[in-house]
């Protein structure tokens, strides 16, 4: 399936010179069966650098994070006191952290929901057989190459309440706003900026999936008299489920983490609203507590919570992905 998908995609792009490879196996042929070389030592030598780096810089810090989170560290005395789940109960009962968690949830739902809906619509339109489609596609996906930090810088320049370009245009209409000082506007702005930043990535994936649609099914539906909206909702949309499913999860992860550079440059987590800055999301709070306020214990328990959250999301992705998803043909 992999092979046909890839081949179809390459065939459909207009100027490519890459020939689709001839492929025999279907996906996930058991690796054991194709093992050619027999040596007990060489494969471990080949794996050694990768496993060493993963162990030292991913698994060791992960375990350390969990350990740190159940101790209360005192940096001045350099002592640690076991507090068990104390850090977690403190954290979860703190109104500020609750607000930050809720804001993160709202931000994530909005960016993922609106972002995917927009990306799907645009990818669908750009995949129609129209003149100049390849130029539209290129213009739709290029924001992928922009970093969250650059997105933050661009949007800060545009929406800066005092010198920003947007207010320059809105002033004659008496519509200028304090974009970054008003909590609701700032939250909306960060959300829109994050959606904008994510569009390119999502459109790339949806375009690849749309261009690999089995045309026979669509033609059959057309012959049977299905109209455009029926074809989209009854055939195209269900066939895209695996892609949507995959994108929902990657988008959740990027809403949780890529938002850091964006908010750090655009709003610095502000403006203040009730118990916390309204654009302070989980990762920003973690950074603030760990590297600005030097509250290592609470930062470590936040990190541990996020670690469990991401692990949970990943496990959900793998277990749901196996059952619920329609994997094309």
């Amino acid at each position: 399936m992999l092979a046909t998908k890839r081949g179809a995609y390459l065939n459909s792009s207009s100027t490519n010179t890459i020939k689709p490879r001839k492929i025999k196996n279907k996906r996930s042929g058991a690796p054991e069966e194709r093992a050619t070389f027999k040596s007990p030592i060489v494969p471990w030598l080949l794996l050694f650098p990768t496993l060493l780096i993963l162990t030292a810089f991913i698994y060791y810090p992960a375990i350390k994070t969990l350990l740190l989170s159940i101790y209360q560290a005192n940096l001045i005395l350099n002592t640690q006191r076991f507090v068990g789940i104390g850090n977690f109960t403190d954290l979860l009962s703190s109104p500020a952290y609750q607000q930050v968690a809720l804001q993160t949830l709202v931000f994530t739902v909005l960016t993922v929901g609106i972002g995917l809906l927009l990306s799907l619509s645009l990818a669908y339109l750009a995949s129609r057989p129209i003149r100049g489609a390849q130029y539209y596609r290129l213009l739709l996906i290029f924001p992928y190459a922009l970093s969250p930090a650059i997105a933050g810088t661009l949007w800060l320049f545009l929406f800066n309440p005092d010198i920003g370009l947007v207010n320059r245009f809105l002033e004659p209409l008496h519509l200028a706003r304090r974009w970054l000082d008003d909590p609701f506007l700032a939250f909306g702005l960060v959300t829109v900026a994050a959606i904008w930043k994510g569009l390119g990535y999502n459109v790339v994936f949806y375009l690849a999936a749309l261009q690999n649609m089995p045309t026979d099914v669509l033609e059959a539906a057309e012959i049977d008299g299905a109209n455009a909206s029926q074809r989209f909702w009854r055939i195209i949309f269900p066939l895209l489920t695996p892609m949507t499913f995959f994108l929902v999860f990657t988008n959740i992860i990027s809403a949780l983490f890529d938002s850091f550079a964006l908010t750090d440059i655009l709003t610095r987590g502000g403006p203040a609203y009730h118990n916390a800055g309204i654009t302070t999301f989980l990762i920003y709070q973690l950074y603030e507590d760990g590297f600005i306020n030097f509250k290592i214990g609470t930062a470590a328990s936040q990190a541990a919570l996020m670690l469990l959250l991401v692990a949970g999301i990943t496990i959900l992705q793998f277990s749901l992905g196996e059952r619920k998803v329609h994997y094309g043909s």
Partner: protein
Amino acid sequence: MAHNTKDLSFKQSWLTHLVLIVACLVISAPLLLAIIKSTQISSDVYSSKLLIGTAFIDNLQKAWVQAHLGRYLLNSFIVTILVTVGKTVLSLLAALAFVFFRFPLKGVAFALVLLSLMLPTEVLIIALFDFVSRDLKWADTFTAIIVPFLASATGVFLFRQHFMNIPVSLADAARIDGCGPFKFLTAILVPMSWNTIGALAVIQFVYVWDQYLWPLVIMQNDQKQVIQVGLRKLIDVGGQTDWGTVMAGTVLAILPPLIVFMALQKQFSSGFALADEK
């Protein structure tokens, strides 16, 4: 779409064109405005003027001299290229082991690579910072922003998928002809894998070039800082932000990943079409 499909007529497609044109304009607007403003003199930058000016070189020079833009860009290049090359090489080696070797505990080793996808650097940042700065004493060195990122689960998966599509007979023939695993890798696998290598290169280049949080916390030495964090400094310079300068710096910082992306766009898209199957 494929060549043989006929384009829709104007009557059928004008609305699609209209929506797409508006969407492309809105999506490109922030970047277009940044480019325009990066060319204007300071007094015009804050006006609503939208004409290309003549001050781009001036603005760039200011960014280069006052805010060490050149230094940041060079640092980013060094780090990004080393990490991209390193990730590619290590992933090729690991995929070679997973696909063409039989050895005990292979499943465990593979699970170890797989599970690392679950743990983004950001959630490990507190412990990682502690380990890298206190135990390894790597703070303020390039080592700190290069070595921890040399392994790549994504790379291992991409190459593994790709290698599994290579006929077994080819590997067997190579072995019978007396080709060792390393020779097999360099003489046969790598030449057959340029598309996948290209796809991975784009993904990794963009990922490493865009890194922000880790360099922000581990690199206190401004001389070794990368461009993404440098932008933040550029905005802060002297309290009063010179936005023409910032925009010139931003435009320059966008170019490298954009060029890599454009150059390898085909491989990138097909690489992603593969990646979603993992």
